[in-house]
């Protein structure tokens, strides 16, 4: 459980440190004009961004716990390491490219360069879909080679971790689909800018998660 503890320790320490900083030097029973002027918005970002950051903390907890479970289960003598399909490298490249293109689109949206948004979104989504299709092909290759879910815990974890990551990716694609539809039906960059910015963060996060998972699967 060390991995989860470290991840959650960092998250909790950040939250508590931030809250302490807000509260340590206050005397709430005294009415200060400066306090009266506080706007009631603690962070200078859109509330949807706060929602997303909170969700990323939840997702970090989920993946951290899966990784902890993986490392604990790995210690048992029946563990037979799985040799991952080479296709995963290609999939990883797809996801890296998707993240880069999403970032490129985000920059365009922030700067208001309308003509880059439509192709950017389309390519980013297509690369992500290719990644997911690639993951499914990798599953098929493994089961064709006789590596079924229930044969060995290493196999089980492989299917489980890729599935959970894929589901998170699908959730992202749902939001992507909504903003892409908007753009294709002629909406301007203003109406999709926030969505693109937040999706970019989400894509980067899931890329990071995938790299950690892939590294762990490869090295064990």
């Amino acid at each position: 459980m060390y991995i989860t503890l470290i991840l959650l320790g960092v998250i909790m320490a950040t939250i508590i440190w931030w809250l302490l900083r807000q509260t340590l030097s206050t005397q709430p029973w005294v009415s200060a004009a400066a306090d009266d002027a506080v706007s009631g918005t603690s962070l200078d970002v859109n509330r949807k961004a706060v929602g997303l950051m909170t969700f990323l903390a939840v997702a970090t907890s989920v993946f951290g716990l899966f990784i902890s479970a993986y490392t604990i289960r790995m210690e048992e003598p029946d563990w037979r390491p799985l040799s991952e399909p080479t296709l995963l490298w290609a999939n990883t490249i797809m996801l890296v490219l998707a993240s880069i293109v999403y970032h490129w689109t985000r920059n365009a949206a922030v700067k208001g360069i309308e003509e880059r948004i439509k192709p950017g979104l389309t390519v980013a989504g297509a690369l992500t879909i290719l990644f997911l299709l690639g993951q499914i092909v990798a599953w098929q290759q493994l089961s064709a080679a006789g590596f079924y879910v229930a044969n060995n815990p290493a196999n089980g974890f492989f299917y489980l971790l890729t599935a959970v990551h894929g589901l998170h990716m699908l959730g992202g694609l749902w939001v992507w689909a909504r903003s892409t539809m908007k753009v294709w039906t002629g909406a301007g960059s203003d109406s999709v800018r926030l969505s693109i910015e937040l999706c970019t963060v989400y894509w980067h996060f899931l890329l990071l998660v995938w790299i950690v998972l892939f590294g762990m699967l490869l090295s064990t």
Partner: protein
Amino acid sequence: MAYVSIADRDHEIEHHDDPQTFVAKYVWSQDHKVIAIQYGGLAILIGLFGMVLSSMFRLQLGFPDTFDFINPENYYQFVTLHGMIMVVYLLTALFLGGFGNYLIPLQVGSRDMVFPFMNMLSVWVYALSVVILMASFFVPGGATGAGWTLYPPQAISPGTPGVDLGIVLMLVSLAVFIVAFTMGGLNYVTTVLQARCRGMTLMRMPLSVWGIFMATILGLLAFPALLVSAIMMLLDKLIGTSFFMPAMMAAGEVTEYGGGSPVLFQHLFWFFGHPEVYIVALPAFGIVSDLLSVHARKNIFGYRMMVWAILAIGGLSFIVWAHHMYVSGMNPYFGFFFATTTLIIAVPTALKVYNWVLTLWQGNIHLRVPMLFAIGFIFTFTHGGLTGLFLGNVTIDLPLSDTYFVVAHFHMVMGVSPVLVVFGAIYHWYPKMTGRMYNETLGKWHFWLTFLGTYSLYLPMHYIGFLGVPRRYFAMGNTDFMPDSAITLNTSMTISALIIAATQLIFLYNIIVSLKKGEKAGGNPWKATSLEWLTPDTPPKHGNWGHDLPVVHRWAYDYAVPGAPDDYTPQTVPADEVPVGRDHGVDH
């Protein structure tokens, strides 16, 4: 009272046109108050069902061999579902989904939660999880009887009740519940951080909001552990993986499982399970602080300490989980570590208890029904907390493990105590939610019968635990070490349990009949200072604040301020009109 509009917030009114149709207003409502009542109502309903389950198995324990309709199989189903329903589907849903939804926007001066649509989804997904849970009673084999901790390998091995579909539905229901909770939780956190009214600094928030806020953070980070273990156990059950399942024989046959680690499940389960205690306790701590302060007409003693204690408890709650696992065979050094952290977490918790008592000291105490429940909570929580110190020590825990002492401990500390706060809170905010007063006499009967009833139920339970009577047994049989007195005590405890259960009918009668017959309450019957009592309408309408959002000029605890015209000064009154603070060097 000074209400001014905030230029950068006025657009929000446009999004809050009153819904017109019945369905939009009461079914697919996006109003946090309606959602709160939906959440709370459903939680209480399922909680009553959980209470009936407990009456059933208490009948078996008090009067063994008397009732034909309780056999070992459904005894275990009742015990399991009672535990799971009370912890997750009642207390978590009621405190965060119910009170969280109702109180956060009203107490921080917001018009609604920041993501109202997701809030609506949250309550309906929660309803779906309850339906799935209830469905497990009607599938072949019935509900799971694995015990509320659902430990493998037993939970999915032949011989355990509900091993086919019951356990599957249980796990699916939990996963769905976690999705619902996450959608709600994102709302609570974001609303507290980003949607407070002008002047509402974090340190001017009532402690109820602080408790709910921190509990939500704990829930968001800890429920994933339950989700992960539920998913992995589902795979073990449905497609034969061996994440948790060791090589074993079941019902005389060798199973296909092998190599799995049941202790891994325990780690994951309690990594959720212990923060869960505080997910339930922190909102109760916050709410009880507000009840005590309002009804003792005094500021809460040590407000800042109370906030920091909530933060400390929140942080520490993640590093005590393995004190539930001293007998699992883990490394003794871990036991030492977890015993130490467990004793450390008692420090901020004890600090809160002192502060509650000191809030009462020299207060102008009004023993109204919410106050009775709040004071009752101090008793039960102190008792439950003290036995926690015993069980937190490895050497004392080992002989007491799996006895009724443990059952008595956790029922006092996280059963009775939070439930007393729930009742106190319902009575306290009932006038705001409905516009009517409850019946005071019936409320007092409800309190005394519940409070004394729970003591007569759980005090003897500690004693039979000391005697070594094991929990989870359907029947004790001829166990020589148990004196007759233990058997007799079991009968008396069952009678107490049945009286407590019947007493809740008084509560239901009171809150239902008072809806129509209660006296009109007015906007602020308790003369309280926090924002929810200052709404232009009671019950508050959709959008809460009429045209203009409130502006806050002081904290929520200005009771009996020297020099002030009234013994309470609402948060919206500027400092130059009425002095602020009490005995803190302010010149009056």
